[in-house]
């Protein structure tokens, strides 16, 4: 696998609550995360809200600047070259309601200064066809389209500059159930035909299982486990990964109360717990977890699976 994106000890900290006479506090949204994405690979980022998955995706897309660490794309610092593009969760707020769809889709090319107006129009026409929107879509406004069609417009905009990596932040969760599979199929088709790599941020584990090659689990800004899809779903190593898998509702599974439900809520990233940040909710936690932060380590005999836990399974 040749590495497309290389994230090395990335931290993203935000100053919050600072005033004239108050120093403010530091919110540690992403804390020393390292991971790689290969060419044509789909890496899924999962975790609860507050886990840092959206922030990490925004850094990769160039919308946020990391506080520390390196993010390299093909060995170089990220530039606005159109090679990494983003698809957002809500297709209703992600498209400018006053722009024609054709102009929305063409905008990345315009900003990059690629081609003449006529050439751009032709590429927009081809792109609109590829995402299976009606041919006259370019001359209409976003409000004339349904949620699923708007997400197709957003995908067309993301793909027009021929990117190699797409960051998709919960691209299905604002869509109706019967529309989700349509858009999911489209994303997978385009990924195959254009040899794209995908950073797929999602809370829906069934969708992640369907689309991902590898899965990274974040908790309170830390990477707690990363593994191939099948390994992660069949033999999760970190107790948090196991808890997430157990919490996901399943068809045909009658609710057995409290059996494996994770207690409590994700703590504040402004004042994270000592030691292992998961110890406040972990069924396995002991004294060492409260004092020493575990490091991400490869699991013996399980290639490609890494976990940060004193009591890895």
């Amino acid at each position: 696998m040749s590495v497309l994106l290389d994230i090395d000890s990335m931290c993203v900290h935000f100053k919050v609550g600072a005033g004239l006479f108050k120093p403010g506090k530091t919110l540690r949204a992403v804390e020393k995360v390292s991971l790689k994405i290969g060419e044509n690979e789909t890496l899924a980022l999962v975790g609860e809200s507050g886990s840092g998955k959206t922030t990490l995706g925004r850094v990769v897309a160039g919308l946020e600047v990391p506080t520390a660490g390196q993010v390299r794309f093909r060995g170089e610092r990220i530039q606005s070259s159109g090679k990494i593009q983003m698809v957002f969760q809500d297709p209703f707020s992600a498209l400018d309601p006053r722009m024609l769809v054709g102009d929305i889709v063409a905008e990345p090319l315009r900003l990059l200064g690629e081609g003449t107006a006529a050439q751009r129009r032709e590429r927009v026409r081809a792109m609109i066809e590829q995402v299976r929107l009606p041919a006259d879509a370019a001359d209409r406004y976003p409000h004339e389209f349904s949620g699923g069609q708007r997400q197709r417009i957003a995908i067309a905009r993301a793909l027009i500059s021929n990117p190699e990596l797409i960051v998709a932040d919960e691209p299905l969760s604002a869509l109706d159930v019967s529309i989700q599979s349509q858009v999911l199929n489209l994303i997978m088709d385009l990924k195959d035909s254009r040899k794209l790599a995908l950073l797929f941020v999602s809370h829906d584990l069934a969708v992640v299982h369907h689309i991902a090659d590898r899965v990274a689990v974040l908790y309170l800004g830390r990477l707690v486990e990363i593994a191939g899809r099948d390994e992660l779903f069949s033999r999760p190593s970190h107790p948090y990964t196991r808890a997430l898998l157990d919490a996901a509702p399943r068809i045909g599974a009658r609710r057995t109360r409290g059996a494996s439900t994770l207690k409590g809520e994700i703590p504040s990233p402004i004042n994270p717990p000592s030691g292992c940040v998961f110890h406040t909710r972990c069924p396995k936690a002991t004294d060492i977890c409260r004092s020493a932060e575990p490091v991400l380590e490869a699991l013996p005999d399980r290639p490609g699976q890494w976990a940060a836990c004193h009591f890895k399974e």
Partner: protein
Amino acid sequence: MSQKLVMPEAAAPPALEVGGLTVAFEKQGRRVEVVSGVSFSIAAGRTLGVVGESGCGKTMTSLAVMGLAPANGQVSGSIRLAGQEMVGASERAWADSRGARAAMVFQEPMSALNPVMTIGRQIAEVLVRHRRLGWREAHEQAVEALASVGIPSPALRAKDYPHRLSGGMRQRAMIAIALACRPAVLVADEPTTALDVTIQAQVLDLMVEMQERLGMAIQFISHNLAVISEIADEIVVMYAGKVVEKAPADELFTSPLHPYTRGLIETLPDPQRRVARLPVIPGAVPKLDVDFRGCRFAGRCRLADDHCRAVSPELELHAADHWVACHKVDV
């Protein structure tokens, strides 16, 4: 398997009985039925799941059951709460009923709770209104109610305003408000949709636990089939304002009959059966302000023929407790 409260079968009427419920609006001189002839009933201690996509009428059905349908909506049919007919009842009768006999939990606790009133007072208010308690006693019971839904330090939290609580805690607080007067019916409209999966699991556990303790009937509305599958005893599938299928939960998922139900289940990625391409239901949910002739799903249905496009199918009994509205299912 959770233990359900066992209720005597005879005598007592269902906690909620809805018959031929229709909610219609006038739109540009045309009558638009957003809920059309919906019927179901829920016994005490049981949970009915209502599943469907946006625009299928599931939220309007639950608002009608609470007497909260918009004022310009025409509600007809029958809604019986613990045996009493509520369609056509006065606003006063509805106000006496809401919170006491039927209560509701909404998707977005932040917009459903009053932001300028403490959590404790919002619970006490219900007790003062319906139980005629004094404020002091109502506040004491409010703290107990918060404790019963698993909110830590309930006496302190009772003095907090909603914005101080996390999403999961707010949803617990809303459940405490809804259950303060031990209603016979709890209507829960997408109560876990805004929550993380881990917190969703906690809130579902809480609802099951409270039902075991208080024995209320639950009408649980969700677009999420997996959540519905875990919590419901019986399921109603709605499409474009109509009930298209109704069956016991296990049966609905093992042998779905309506092409829409089948489509919904098939389109979900299933970790047990991984496929390269997911099956899809073509098209999108129709707008309701058109003249429907025939089956409302016909435009997206692979099986549809001229008969389907001309004649609206009735909900008919197919197997024990399994109802379906489709010309293409052999009844």
